[in-house]
């Protein structure tokens, strides 16, 4: 039996029932990494010895009949934007290349408390800014489906790791589509939970009001398993939601239960503009739902046209402030021979930040500047409220909104690097969920003429992840797209 083909759910059950050991599972993952990582380049750091030590410990406890967590012995990986008290936390940036955090992010701590085995940290666009992982200052990650193509981004490493069977489940972060879009490009399931559902403590901030941690897996059940573990209120994050207001659901419990009287919303204007193959796959997916008894309703989202503009003002404004701390004074890269303290700042930042990060810092700084604040930042906040309102109205008419995740399938390296606006447009379908704070998931729904995966996006109201995943599972159960795998892993 090939362990790589087991889902996380199957694997943890096999480990818990001692059919295989955690050590065997981790060794299998490491063997796959040995075989494919030189090609895929998903990881910034690997913790081989530590992972095996931890796996042995979990095996011992299982053998002793001691209580273990819900992810006991399961190999996992996290995007290198989450702080870990072990190894480096680079955010894909040369400015933090040698930064070692003194603490674990809450989501990381929860994985460890659930007895997961963290095997490595994955590559990403620098500070999660990008849609192709090409902005990583440290390494190149390729799409396991086509090595001349990008894995998507910014959580490209986490998506590629799952698609390449380098790890059964991983965590990423999603500010404007950074989980869903690479999930779509790599043919895996990616979930962005509701803003406030998962603690951001220890998640290195890009756009604080948009950032959210979420899981990747090959099945809907696998991401449900992961969400169950990482969700919940955290006193260390003021924006994480009080569980008395929004209790954390058990997303696995009723996953296979169909949603009664499911109404799916389609935004006609939303779906236009996608490549024909993508469009066809989404249309086919809608037919699958219709065939399963869902009612399809057309809904209007009048302010969606302004989502990208609003997003790039808000996200960059927050980023310009969030990234101010990387100044060479306290940690991270410091320029070699500064003439004065101002040069410590200017040269350290100039030397170690990549072009896209600099571009966004400048955009955000401009948007917050005196005299421009009202015209840009304040206006963007107003647009954001209107978009929130659009979703509230839309969800009065339907349970979930269905759309493509991205207008295209995975593009080639370099194709959009010189045209930032084109790159920004790859987030067109995903961004509005971040602005509205609602959950969204990407599930595989087809392959294009180049055998590249296509993702279906489903959006539901805030804090309805259990329902969202049930709607996603309904599609997954009716199709076999999630069983397709890249030639690389055959």
């Amino acid at each position: 039996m090939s362990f790589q083909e087991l889902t996380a759910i199957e694997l943890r059950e096999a480990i818990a029932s001692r059919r295989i050991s955690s050590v065997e599972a981790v060794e299998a993952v490491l063997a796959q990494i040995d075989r494919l990582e030189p090609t895929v380049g998903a990881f910034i750091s690997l913790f081989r010895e530590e992972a095996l030590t931890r796996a042995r410990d979990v095996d011992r406890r299982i053998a002793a009949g001691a209580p273990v967590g819900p992810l006991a012995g399961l190999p996992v990986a996290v995007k290198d934007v989450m702080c870990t008290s072990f190894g480096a936390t680079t955010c894909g940036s040369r400015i933090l290349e040698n930064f070692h955090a003194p603490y674990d992010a809450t989501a990381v701590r929860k994985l460890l408390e659930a007895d997961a085995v963290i095997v490595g940290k994955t590559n990403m666009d620098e500070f999660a800014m990008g849609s192709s992982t090409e902005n990583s200052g440290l390494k190149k990650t390729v799409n396991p489906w086509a090595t001349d193509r990008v894995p998507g981004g910014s959580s490209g490493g986490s998506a590629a790791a799952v698609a390449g069977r380098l790890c059964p489940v991983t965590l990423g972060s999603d500010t404007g589509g950074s989980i869903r879009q690479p999930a779509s490009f790599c043919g895996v399931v990616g979930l962005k939970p509701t803003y406030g559902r998962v603690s951001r403590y220890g998640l290195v901030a890009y756009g604080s009001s948009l950032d959210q941690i979420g899981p990747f897996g090959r099945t809907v059940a696998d991401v449900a398993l992961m969400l169950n573990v990482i969700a919940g209120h955290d006193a260390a994050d003021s924006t994480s939601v009080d569980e008395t207001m929004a209790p954390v659901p058990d997303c696995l419990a009723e996953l296979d239960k169909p949603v009664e009287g499911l109404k799916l919303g389609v935004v006609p204007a939303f779906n236009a503009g996608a490549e024909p193959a993508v469009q066809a796959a989404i249309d086919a997916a809608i037919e699958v739902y219709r065939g399963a008894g869902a009612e399809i309703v057309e809904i209007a989202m009048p302010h969606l046209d302004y989502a990208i503009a609003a997003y790039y003002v808000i996200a960059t404004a927050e980023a310009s402030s969030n990234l101010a701390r990387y100044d060479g004074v306290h940690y991270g890269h410091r320029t070699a021979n500064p003439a004065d303290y101002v040069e410590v700042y200017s040269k350290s930042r100039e030397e170690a930040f990549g072009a896209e990060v600099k571009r966004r810092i400048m955009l955000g700084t401009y948007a917050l500047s005196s005299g421009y604040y009202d015209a840009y930042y304040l206006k963007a906040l107003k647009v954001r409220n209107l978009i929130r309102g659009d979703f509230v109205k839309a969800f009065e008419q339907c349970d979930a909104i269905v759309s493509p995740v991205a207008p295209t399938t995975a593009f080639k390296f370099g194709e959009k690097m010189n045209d930032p606006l084109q790159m920004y447009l790859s987030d067109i379908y995903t961004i509005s969920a971040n602005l509205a704070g609602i959950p969204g998931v990407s599930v595989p729904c087809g392959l294009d003429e180049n055998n590249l995966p296509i993702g279906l996006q489903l959006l539901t109201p805030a804090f309805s992840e259990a329902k969202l995943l049930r709607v996603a599972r309904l599609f997954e159960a009716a199709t076999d797209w999630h069983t397709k795998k890249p030639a690389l892993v055959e």
Partner: protein
Amino acid sequence: MSGLSYKVIVGLEIHVQLCTKTKMFCGCELSFGEEANSRVCPVCLGMPGSLPVMNGQAVEYAMRAALALNCEVAPFTKWDRKSYYYPDLPKNYQISQYDLPLGNGGYIEIPQADGQTKRIRLIRAHLEEDAGKNLHTAGNYSQVDLNRAGTPLLEIVTEPDMSSADEVRALAVELQRIMRYLGVSEGDMQKGHMRFEPNINLVITRPDGEFKTPIAEIKNLNSFRALERSVAYEIERQLDEFIETGVTLQMGNKSTRGWNDDEQVTVLQREKEEAHDYRYFPDPDLVPVTTTPEWLEQIKAQVCELPLHKQLRYVNEYGLSDYDAGVLTAERATADFFEATVASGGDPKRVCNLLSQVGLKLANERGCDLSGLGIEPAPVAELAQMTDTGTVSATAASTILEAMVETGKGPEALAEELNLVQKSDAGELEGMVDAVLAENPQVVEQIKSGDKKSKKAMGFLLGQVMQRTKGQANPKVVSEILGRKFN
């Protein structure tokens, strides 16, 4: 220069350090004098991924202060990031409050020489986090100590309502007293708990018109003396400068000056006002604060009578001197003890004397306040009453109060034990008076003859009686008996 008059205009910005247990947005304890960077955590170090969590106690202290300063407390307030780069600011932004400060408007009453008060209006009061400290030790580098980073500060901004260095000082002193009364700040100047930045200029009137001198802001003053002297110096300097150069207030010619304590002069730091763009925007890591009416009521109940009001009331209600009232109201513990003792039936003046002359001296020696002396207000009131009724003399009362502090015993028991009960029995004392008169016939004659030394002679006789009773005779009763003998 003849025909020239001027008016001084001063506004103040004050940073008050709140005495919360922990910092504004993390769980680190407040620090003073600890080893550098020993009271820090990922949050106040501004480490990647760390997030601030608001300290509710700091907000409540700020609300208490705002209410006491007559501010309007905002029903909805929020946190904003103020961006600037400086090595002592780990995130390179400070979490502060911009367009929705916790407190709006308000005023502080300050005492004036004529016994009246003057109202200094406030513009706003808001909460923010302090920065760390840059240490310029040796070599061509500096070090940063972040123990102070994240300490909660209340920034109070006044209208330019002060018109002399005296008034500026009075405001500073009054604010310190208020903050201490409210229990929201220790107000320890040595520890930098209060830092002042006055903005000063003059309106000069000459026969040829009215002229305003450029505004100077003096940075970071942390003693009343430096505050008062720097303002006084700046007034003279601006006057001289105007006479010499005629320079007047223009857009952008506000300057920043520092106070050189050795030379007792202000020194120019920045000639032109820099066009700072702090790029304020709401901090997305924190949630806005709604001050509900119920919460406000709860905080209002924690606001006590303000010291200046108390001081004036002591003068008017109890007939104390302004000086005594000032001594009793300098610290809240003193005023509270005083009022409790008066409420227990002690005569205010008598209690004032006991507390200000004995109680505060003992407290000072022990490094505590009156409440730390281990005595209760009721026995002190009893002691005051014993003095009123002549059971003990005023001098004896002081001795008894000291003994009360030493032993914890009650005043009556101590009066007996120390033989300090006065003999007031007229019959017994009359016999002694008669004996003294019999022993001193010349003196008696002197008095009877109406000699101009008779007053002194009466004193001598009183002294003889006191001697016979080893000082325990009530001098008032003895005087009465003596008086009767010569009528």
